[in-house]
């Protein structure tokens, strides 16, 4: 009943007329409270709380503050209240008791004193304990006093996770009920329930609730544990902050979820890395210098973001305020920068240097209301305004935080603490670890098992072998040795792999596989792995090695892709400049497939051409051109270790290497090449535009079409082949004019007229067919001359860009492969096609004489023989020629039906070729040598030589080897004339150039004898065992561990070295 009154007081005022004065007082208070302001209310609440709060607390007050009259009064009244209730419970003379203040007071005091005595007795134990100096006595006492507790607690403490599972709620257990309460008052509500419970208990009407749970993260709700909903309702009745209406049952299954509170990981301690949550320093990394957990404040150390000039201005202006705050808001926040004393002096900012008693009396500089030391800002913040959760400073940040003047890690605490905040699950079974903390420090071992809390380690130490020790993950650190090959699994370099070149505490330096650069990563972020990946190679629409536009005038090549940014090698040839560019800062991707540039000798360089740098900072480097932009080349030199091997150079600093590009001899050789290149180019173009196939007919004895012809057939792009040539306009308003072609597309040509200082655009078909014919009578002859205008050097470029090449190439590589061998293109063309020259030579008399006598007759092959570097390529023809000679019939027949052997894509170029050349049939063998069906090994080989001048693979001396490359154990495809191709294994290579071959992929079949011309290497696949058939390493064996375009990555058997060799020099070995 007593309780009812108590609760009704708050709800219905009319009901309480007969109530005691003090109760009325209470009521008044409640009413007052409702009217009062928010702050007031909270004060009141405390006050009210103390009224019915545990008497122990009040006794304390009474004892200590006897002289404090007002407080005492309050207490008395409160006690009286309690007393009243007790009285109500014990006897019915409530009115009598409550009638007079004096009486009540007396009663109250008496009660207190009575209770106090009991309490005192209760609590006096402890002071006495302390007085007992004898520890044994103390122990004895404690055991007596708390023995029961101890035992129970001990038992309880042993509760493991498994046993915790046994505690799962069952139907027998009390249920949890969810009630609504005022948001922000959850704790208060639960504590009040506790108080109420005790009060009611004292009245002998205990509430039948077991517990009340307030969760910090669940606003507006409270859980009450009880057997029945009615008990809950009873308990919450009259509680202002708890909604009386809703009481919801929590399903048994969800009961544990209620209590599984996520651990509050506010673990801010000295030297913890934190991030500032708001203000100017929002998001900035800071280091905790000092924490005051009681006041919930911390001193943190930051890189100042102070605009000294603004500060100086402010200080000099004195106390002028107003409008400044608005200014501040609009201003971008100052960049983080260390404070420099010199700067302060320059700006005349007065600095006080004082000791700070809070920080061990160290000296600090004070100015502008801020505190600085060694350039860092020291700032006192509330613990709530910093975030230590999951703060993993990146290496960059740490480096920045490390003041430049600091000599090598005075801040060395940085790394280990940074590691301390690593994420869970970083250890996996098999990791080599080292203990970094605890008794077993420096013990090494391997991770055996990882569970929620512990990492089980099998020690390396012999004496401890067999045992498994459990460690906390913070006690362990992954252990790596220099030379380990690892993979980065987190952080900016995520995905990269490389070899460890240096091990520091908590971090390692790895040499990236892709970029060949040093990466500094935390050991926590790496795992041992034999995997070789390129790391990330895509970011948005951009891929590694793309040419991107950074701003109007700047381009660059992506040399590394990181998590959200790219490293871009800027197109500044004078110095290698790498920028870290965010995705959004990249304007667009540039396509430069058709761009070209000029080298020092005004040769045109296009993509994939190999150039050598002869000037500038990268003098001596060489490699294929990967990108071209406005005369600037991006070269990939795989021996260059920085920036992923990319170099940025001016085109004018380079010379093009290899093939016809070398202009040491500008004369007829070039012309000759053009001629043939052009000649063969014509058919190629049909691949692109087959609809034009009738053209060769119209073109007549086609070979002479040369570059003009080729140029016209070009697709819809610029035809640089024509640029620089002299053309005559056949028809239209400019009929008869002659001029230099300055630009050309497949429809129009812009010509700079010779007679007028004017550039005009004319349709291509208005041009005279015989471009430059005024100089020469024969159409073909013009190609001799064209180099004069630069066309010669350009013409050969066409083939390299023509998609045709791959198609021609492919069969040589692998009849079934798709045409992707980009790397082979350019040099290959020269090599590949030059043989034709040689082969054509015998045909010349019969078919070509009429068309272009000058070319063939006068400046034909012989002229090239003396050519210096070019000489090489002119020897190449020989094998081709020989190939033809060796297999006259077989090749011929094969070539006659190209579509059969290599499919339609091949057939198309072949046919126009045949049509276009009157001497078709005799020519065919030449073509045939490039067909899959032919003894293709030979043409391939010279191609190799041209492809990579740096590779030791094949030189001129390779000729002999080329011819007799056969080595035992190599798997080959045998193509005998008129027979099906068969796979066999070379058993023996005879000195006469034939091989004994056992048919079957592992040599189990019949023995046959075949010439080299009939043999073709079987292209090895990754992981195949291989034998090297040419070059210095001929006869060596190894394993192909990777294929990179035209290069094979081979692990040598004897030396275990990794070599990069041309695929064509690798023969697959028969599996044993």
């Amino acid at each position, binding site marked *: 009943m007593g309780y009812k009154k108590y609760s009704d007081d708050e709800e219905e005022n009319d009901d309480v007329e007969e109530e005691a004065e003090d109760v009325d007082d209470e009521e008044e208070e409640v009413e007052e409270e409702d009217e009062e302001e928010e702050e007031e209310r909270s004060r009141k609440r405390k006050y009210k709380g103390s009224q019915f*709060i545990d008497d122990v607390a009040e006794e304390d007050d009474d004892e200590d503050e006897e002289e404090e009259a007002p407080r005492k009064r309050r207490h008395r009244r409160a006690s009286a209240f309690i007393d009243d209730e007790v009285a109500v419970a014990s006897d019915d003379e409530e009115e009598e008791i409550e009638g007079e203040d004096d009486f009540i007071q007396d009663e109250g005091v008496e009660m207190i004193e009575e209770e106090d005595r009991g309490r005192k007795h209760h609590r006096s134990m402890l002071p006495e304990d302390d007085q007992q100096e004898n520890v044994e006595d103390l*122990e004895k006492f404690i055991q007596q006093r*708390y023995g029961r507790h101890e035992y129970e607690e001990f038992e309880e403490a042993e509760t493991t996770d498994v046993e915790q599972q046994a505690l799962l709620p069952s139907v027998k257990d009390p249920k949890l009920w969810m009630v609504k309460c005022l948001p922000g008052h959850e704790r208060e509500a639960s504590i009040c329930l506790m108080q109420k419970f005790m009060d009611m208990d004292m009245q002998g009407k*205990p509430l039948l*609730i077991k517990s009340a749970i307030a*969760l910090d993260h669940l606003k507006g709700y409270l859980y009450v544990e009880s057997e029945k909903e009615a008990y809950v309702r009873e308990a919450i009745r009259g509680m202002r902050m708890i909604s009386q209406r809703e009481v919801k049952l929590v399903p048994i299954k969800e009961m544990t979820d209620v209590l599984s509170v996520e651990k*509050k990981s506010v*673990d801010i301690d000295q030297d913890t890395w934190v991030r500032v949550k708001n203000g100017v320093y929002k998001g900035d990394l800071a280091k905790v210098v000092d924490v005051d957990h009681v006041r919930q404040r911390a001193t943190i150390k930051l890189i100042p973001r102070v605009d000294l000039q603004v500060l100086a201005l402010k200080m000099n202006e004195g106390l002028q305020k107003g409008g400044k705050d608005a200014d501040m808001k609009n201003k971008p926040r100052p960049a983080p920068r260390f404070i420099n004393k010199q700067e302060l002096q320059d700006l005349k900012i007065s600095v006080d240097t004082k000791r700070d008693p809070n920080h061990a009396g160290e000296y600090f500089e004070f100015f502008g209301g801020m505190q600085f030391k060694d350039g860092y800002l020291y700032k006192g913040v509330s613990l709530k305004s910093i975030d230590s959760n999951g703060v993993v400073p990146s290496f960059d940040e740490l480096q920045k935080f490390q003041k430049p003047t600091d000599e090598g890690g005075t801040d060395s605490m940085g790394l280990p603490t940074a590691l301390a905040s690593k994420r869970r699950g970083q250890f996996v079974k098999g990791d080599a670890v080292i203990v970094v903390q605890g008794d077993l420090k420096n013990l090494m071992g391997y991770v055996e098992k990882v569970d929620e809390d512990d990492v089980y380690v099998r020690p390396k130490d012999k004496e401890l072998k067999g045992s498994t020790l459990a460690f906390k993950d913070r006690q362990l650190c992954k252990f790596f040795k220099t030379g380990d090959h690892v993979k980065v699994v987190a952080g900016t370099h995520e995905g990269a792999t490389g070899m460890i070149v240096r091990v520091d505490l908590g971090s390692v330096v790895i040499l990236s596989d892709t970029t060949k650069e040093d990466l500094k990563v935390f050991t926590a972020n790496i795992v041992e792995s034999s995997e070789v990946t390129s790391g990330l190679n895509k970011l948005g629409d951009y891929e590694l090695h793309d040419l991107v536009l950074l701003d109007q005038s700047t381009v660059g090549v992506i040399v590394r892709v990181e998590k959200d940014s790219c490293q871009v090698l800027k197109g500044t040839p004078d110095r290698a400049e790498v920028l870290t560019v965010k995705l959004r800062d990249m304007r667009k991707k540039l396509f430069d497939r058709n761009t070209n540039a000029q080298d020092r000798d005004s040769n045109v360089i296009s993509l994939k051409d190999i150039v050598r740098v002869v000037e500038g900072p990268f003098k001596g480097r060489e490699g294929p051109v990967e990108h071209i932009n406005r005369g600037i080349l991006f070269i990939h030199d795989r021996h260059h270790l920085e920036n992923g091997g990319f170099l940025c150079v001016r085109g004018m600093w380079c010379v093009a290497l290899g093939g016809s590009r070398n202009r040491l001899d500008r004369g007829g050789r070039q012309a000759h090449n053009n001629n043939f290149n052009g000649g063969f180019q014509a058919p190629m173009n049909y691949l692109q535009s087959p609809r034009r196939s009738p053209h060769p007919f119209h073109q007549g004895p086609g070979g002479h079409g040369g570059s003009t012809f080729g140029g016209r057939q070009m697709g819809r792009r610029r035809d640089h082949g024509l640029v620089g040539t002299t053309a005559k306009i056949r028809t239209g308003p400019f009929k008869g004019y002659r001029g230099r072609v300055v630009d050309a597309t497949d429809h129009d040509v812009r010509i700079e007229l010779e007679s007028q200082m004017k550039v005009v655009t004319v349709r291509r078909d208005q041009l005279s067919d015989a471009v430059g014919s005024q100089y020469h009578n024969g159409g073909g002859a013009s190609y001799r001359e064209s180099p004069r205008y630069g066309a010669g050097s350009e013409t050969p470029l066409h083939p390299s860009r023509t998609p045709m090449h791959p198609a021609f190439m492919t069969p040589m590589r692998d009849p079934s492969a798709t045409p992707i061998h980009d790397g082979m293109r350019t040099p290959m063309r020269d090599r590949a096609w030059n043989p034709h020259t040689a082969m054509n030579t015998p045909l010349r008399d019969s078919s070509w004489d009429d068309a272009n006598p000058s070319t063939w007759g006068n400046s034909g092959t012989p002229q090239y023989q003396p050519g210096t570097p070019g000489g090489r390529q002119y020897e190449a023809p020989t094998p081709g020629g020989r190939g033809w000679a060796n297999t006259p019939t077989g090749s011929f027949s094969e070539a006659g039906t190209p579509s059969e052997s290599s499919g339609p894509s091949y057939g198309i170029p072949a046919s126009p070729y045949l049509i276009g050349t009157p001497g078709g049939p005799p020519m065919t063998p030449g073509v045939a040598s490039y067909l899959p069906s032919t003894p293709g090994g030979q043409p391939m080989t010279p191609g190799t030589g041209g492809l990579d001048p740096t590779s030791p693979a094949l030189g001129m001396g390779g000729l002999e080897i080329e011819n007799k490359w056969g080595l035992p154990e190599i798997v080959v495809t045998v193509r005998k004339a008129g027979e099906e191709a068969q796979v066999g294994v070379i058993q023996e290579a005879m000195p006469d150039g034939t091989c004994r071959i056992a048919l079957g992929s592992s040599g189990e079949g019949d023995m046959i004898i075949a010439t080299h011309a009939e043999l073709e290497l079987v292209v090895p696949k990754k992981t195949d065992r291989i034998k090297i058939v040419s070059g210095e390493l001929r006869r060596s064996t190894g394993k192909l561990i990777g294929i990179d375009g035209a290069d094979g990555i081979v692990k040598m058997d004897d030396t275990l070295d990794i070599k990069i060799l041309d695929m064509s020099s690798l023969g697959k070995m028969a599996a044993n």
Partner: protein
Amino acid sequence: MGRDPAQIPTSFGKELRACLRCSLVKTYNQFTDSGCENCPFFNMDQDSDRVLDCTTPNFSGVIASMDPTGSWAARWQRIGKFVPGCYALSVTGVLPEEMAAICEYNNVRYVPRS
């Protein structure tokens, strides 16, 4: 009620601290004045510095345990054998080694509550 309940926090704000061993929640002053009911051997009432060592303001959630023996939640929270009172649901931090040694000395096993 089987046992004398612990003091009930006199406020609900920042001054609340939780005992690192038993997770009892009281105000700082309550701890300094009368120590921790479950862990009297810490003698917090004798030495207020002990309060700083043995209690923490870094806790979350409050469970008012009225009938610890009969409450499932109290058992689950491993406070079933402690006196009735207000406890934290989770406490961050561990006892300093010295304090852990005191537990050991008093034959009380200390299991960090975090």
